[in-house]
């Protein structure tokens, strides 16, 4: 079975506050240094970072390797896209139906898929993901189908006299939501519930013997993850100005999964770093060579061989070792 059992969840992952402040400062200052293209890449990194973080709740913490995470991303994106095109404007109000429909979908799918585990879970999620993809592809009247998609979605109206057409302003909106989500997810992970999802990942049988309803724990975790994926999907729609069925395809789910694993499953910062590395590499390498998949493949292999816990996981281990030595 696919297991993340060899992944460590470091007991103490608190970085020194200096590092945290530095990181925050960098994120705030970067838009003033970057070119507009660089800024757009960074915005994308944050959106995908949020997306990958939400998947990490499942993959890294709950131990469910889900292959339809793009469904929630895409369904929320379509919901908001369709409403925007019908004249609804207020961003904050649009978040409600966007996220609600993803939660609803997750609640429904969760009932059907959580009996399977391991490779079977992976495949049944893939199956449902592809069904939703086909729905978006074929339901032309609602989604615009495979060709047109839904174009012409403007930038969000946040009810303040700040134009989101300005890339820097939009970046800060994304940043605020990103940090808010990050803190929220962190809170969930550190809560008793967070402990119980990690316990379920580690040993489901034992959890049941200890009186935990592990099905419910997984179910709730699946729904929470879907909610944050939905937020990322909504932001991505505004960022691109359009949606196409590709946003729901399994290749999107796989792409996010790679970010999580490369960055480090089971650490919250990991998926964000994974998103940054993959997006930036993909854009950099492909500028110089058409053989970029070759290099991506090599990087994966090197990562797996030499940084087995993902980039952040490996760094954390190194850090803990150092701290341990100094004690």
């Amino acid at each position, binding site marked *: 079975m696919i297991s993340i059992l060899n992944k460590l969840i470091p007991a103490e992952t608190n970085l020194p506050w200096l590092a945290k402040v530095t990181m925050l400062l960098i994120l705030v200052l970067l838009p003033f240094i970057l070119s507009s293209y660089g800024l757009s890449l960074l915005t994308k990194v944050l959106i995908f970072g949020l997306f990958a973080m939400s998947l990490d709740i499942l993959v890294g913490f709950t131990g469910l390797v889900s292959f339809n995470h793009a469904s929630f991303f895409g369904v929320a994106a379509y919901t908001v896209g369709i409403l925007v095109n019908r004249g609804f404007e207020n961003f904050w109000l649009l978040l409600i139906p966007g996220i609600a429909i993803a939660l609803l979908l997750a609640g429904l799918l969760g009932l059907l898929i959580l009996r399977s585990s391991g490779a079977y879970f992976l495949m*049944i999620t893939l199956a449902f993901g592809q069904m939703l993809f086909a729905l978006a592809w074929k339901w032309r009247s609602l989604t615009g189908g495979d060709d047109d998609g839904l174009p012409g979605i403007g930038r969000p109206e946040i009810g303040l006299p700040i134009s989101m057409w300005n890339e820097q302003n939009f970046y800060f909106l994304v940043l605020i939501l990103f940090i808010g989500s990050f803190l929220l997810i962190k809170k969930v992970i550190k809560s008793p519930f967070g402990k119980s999802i990690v316990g379920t990942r580690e040993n489901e049988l034992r959890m049941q013997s200890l009186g935990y309803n592990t099905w419910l724990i997984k179910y709730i975790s699946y729904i929470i993850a879907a909610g944050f994926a939905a937020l990322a999907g909504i932001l991505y729609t505004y960022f691109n100005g359009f949606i196409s069925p590709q946003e729901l395809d399994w290749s999107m789910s796989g792409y996010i999964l790679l970010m999580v694993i490369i960055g480090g499953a089971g650490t919250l910062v990991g998926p964000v770093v994974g998103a940054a590395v993959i997006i930036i590499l993909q854009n950099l390498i492909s500028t110089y060579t058409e053989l970029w998949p070759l290099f991506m493949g090599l990087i994966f292999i090197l990562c797996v061989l030499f940084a087995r816990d993902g980039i952040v996981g490996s760094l954390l281990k190194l850090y803990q070792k150092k701290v341990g030595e100094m004690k």
Partner: protein
Amino acid sequence: MDSAQIIIQALNGLSYGLLLFLLATGLSLIFGLMGVINLAHGSFYMLGAYVGLAIINLTGNFVLALLGAALILAFVGILVERFFIQRLYKRELDQVLLTFGFAYIFMDVAKWIWGGTPRSLPKPPFLNSSLNILGEAFPVYRIAMIIIGLFVALALWLFLERTRVGAVIRAGVDDQEMVKAMGINIKIFFTGIFALGAFLAAFGGVIGGPIMGAYLGLDFNILVLALAVVVVGGLGTLKGAFWGSILIGFIETFGKVFFINFAIVTIYIAMALILIFKPAGLLGKEESY
């Protein structure tokens, strides 16, 4: 639909299913024994088709291409297993990720060597005709595919049921410790299984070449089908792979006949339904504990 059409479509489903079987057995055995979902399995299939095509262009001999491609890819499989996967012994997730990296690399290597143009493998001339079945034409080549598929299935069955190595493999699916207990070098054993999987996949790539062709993206398209087969049938058994293949072959074929507008999802709908009612596949063991 008249009876002739039903027979033709059944033959279509059977030939397609048995092609999937060639691919799925290896995937299933590798998973059952090593715990690895080999995401590069489709790449072995695709590279098999490309290498086979190259050999045909060189020698004009289809049979030579079939064996040559299968052997070459088996060798590649040995290299991948021996030098990479083995280094990550017992780290299944990392192994899966590794195979994903290889899938990327193989795809680009194929593009590098053979370019991006889609190709088709020529059929061997002696199979390049049609048979008349109740007034409907049916390609002889597909009959040959059915025969070869059944033959391979039989050979594998005999191998697994009637030989000592086969017994070890069957035991290994249930309990890896058993293999060790029988005094078998587990590393060589794993390499052998991986190579066998690659061999069968490449073999399938050449057999399927005249129909599925060879193109970039074939690897992932076929991988998804093979995964569906393996999961529907139940992981780790020859029986599961065989019946899963036939079932998916028929679902695909009759989906194209009866639910023509939903052909892109029939296989997924079927897979979801099966897994909702049988969470470990049709022939999988329900209780793993």
